[in-house]
């Protein structure tokens, strides 16, 4: 059974006329890694808020359809119970620091204190997620005195420690420098290899190609394409709609027009796929 099940979800923010999500249906199986791509304003963050229960509990507005996590519809639960099922990490590392805690260790404990986890259990879980996210040596530092990449890993640890069934990541690296982004992606990769269920909005196509089992292309609030990373990310028709595709895809597309890409071979997304494809063409020629 799908862990996450969205059926015909349409949502309009308060005081606006046009829906931001239009008839979105999506099933995610346990352990699956689903990436969501789309141009600005496609409704990607709204989708994340809907999964994590912020719609309709935090942002009111008009929601139709059902959003079920582990078979529970969002309307049958409260926000604070929903976040235990679907944990949300978003873009800005700085504003995810609660400001209520003086050390990283305490910061990670915040969610556990709020939801009534006993102290012994807290210490066990915090130790575990700090190792997983590679921040054990930061335990006694102030969460404000960290780099962006470190702060984002603290934010990730603070959500993971609550052991949500689904991890929802809304462009977790978009405000980080390349080194910080790589640190965060390394953690996400490890999580995915452990069989976590992850829904990640991300622009960096090459990372998506490396992680995702399935890619959803969202545009104007609708799912316009869905499939394996290679199928979706190499769909050049998306480039015209404001999707950022990888330079390898675009280069191979140009090559294809000139007859320089092997016929019938899907366009590449990563460097390795491009090298393989052009290599085969070279072999034939």
């Amino acid at each position, binding site marked *: 059974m799908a862990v996450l099940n969205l059926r015909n979800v349409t949502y309009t923010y308060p005081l606006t006329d046009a829906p931001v999500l239009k008839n979105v249906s999506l099933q995610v199986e346990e352990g699956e890694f689903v990436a969501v791509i789309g141009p600005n304003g496609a409704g990607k963050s709204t989708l994340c808020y809907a999964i*994590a229960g912020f719609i309709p509990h935090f942002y009111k507005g008009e929601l139709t359809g059902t959003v079920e996590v582990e078979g529970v519809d969002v309307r049958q639960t409260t*926000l*604070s119970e929903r976040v*235990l099922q679907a944990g949300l990490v978003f873009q800005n590392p700085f504003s995810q620091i*609660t400001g209520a805690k003086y050390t990283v260790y305490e910061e990670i404990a915040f969610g556990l204190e709020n939801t*009534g986890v006993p102290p012994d259990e*807290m210490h066990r879980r915090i130790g575990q997620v700090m190792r997983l996210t590679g921040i054990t040596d930061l335990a006694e530092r*102030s969460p404000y005195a960290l780099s962006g990449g470190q702060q984002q890993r603290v*934010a990730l640890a603070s959500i993971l420690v609550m052991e949500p069934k689904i991890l929802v990541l809304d462009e977790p690296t978009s405000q980080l420098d390349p080194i910080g982004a790589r640190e965060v992606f390394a953690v996400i990769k490890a999580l995915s290899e452990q069989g976590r269920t992850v829904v990640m909005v991300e622009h960096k196509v090459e990372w998506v190609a490396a992680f995702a089992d399935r890619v959803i292309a969202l545009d104007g609030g609708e799912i316009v394409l869905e499939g394996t990373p290679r199928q979706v990310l190499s769909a050049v028709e998306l480039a015209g709609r404001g999707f950022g595709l990888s330079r390898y895809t675009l280069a191979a597309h140009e090559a294809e027009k000139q007859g320089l890409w092997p016929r019938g071979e899907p366009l590449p997304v990563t460097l390795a796929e491009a090298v393989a494809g052009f290599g085969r063409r070279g072999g034939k020629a």
Partner: protein
Amino acid sequence: MHERLSFYIPRSSTLHQLNPLTKVTLTFTLIILAFFSPWYWTAPLLAVGVILPLSALGQVLRPYLSAAARLVLPAVAFIFVMQSLFLPGGQTVLVRLWLLEVTVESLSAAFLTTTRIFAMVSAFILFLLTTHPSHLMSDLTRRKLPAAFAYVIISTLQIIPQMQAKAQTIMDAQRARGLDTESGFIRRVQALTPLVGPLVFGSLVEVEERAIAIEARGFSSTRPKTSLHEIPDTPRDRAIRWVLLALIVLTFASKLWLS
């Protein structure tokens, strides 16, 4: 600069081990005694005979003295001078300075006020030096203080240095575009205007994100909250609090009877 955001100095003294609520009660008892005791010498006696030894007991004597000297003494000295010069109604004139006169009565009233203020502020400093803010808040939330209230207090304490840093960044950005912030006074005041917009509106936008972040951590959960730090509340703590409470009652009672 961002590493230390509170006055708190970690030690393992008897005072540090007291329950935060006991220390809150102690602080307020000292203040009430200083202000409402009918005896004239109570406040100076508390400052020298109680708060000072307590700071030694709490192993924070040196930071206590330095905070008292830097923060309290200048303000207290100023109040003392002003009150001795301007309090009217004295009979026994000691010094006459043009229109102003220092009288025995104004000196004695000034001494009373300043020693009371000194006792109050130094009691607070001692409290802040020996009590970790998050321990205080965990203990108070355990005693049913609303979590939202505790959150507002703690995050405000933390947010001030953040705001300062952000204001500095905006200032630098405006200066890089040629804003004059260094000539005369009027110019400097004018230069503040382009700072206010980004700082205030930027902070408001951040409030929404911060709200999402804390809700994502189950902030509004109705489950009984727990605390990472187990803050002991011993029979000794409870005994001390009863004694302090009795002292407060005695102070008010003596005030009522003797007046």
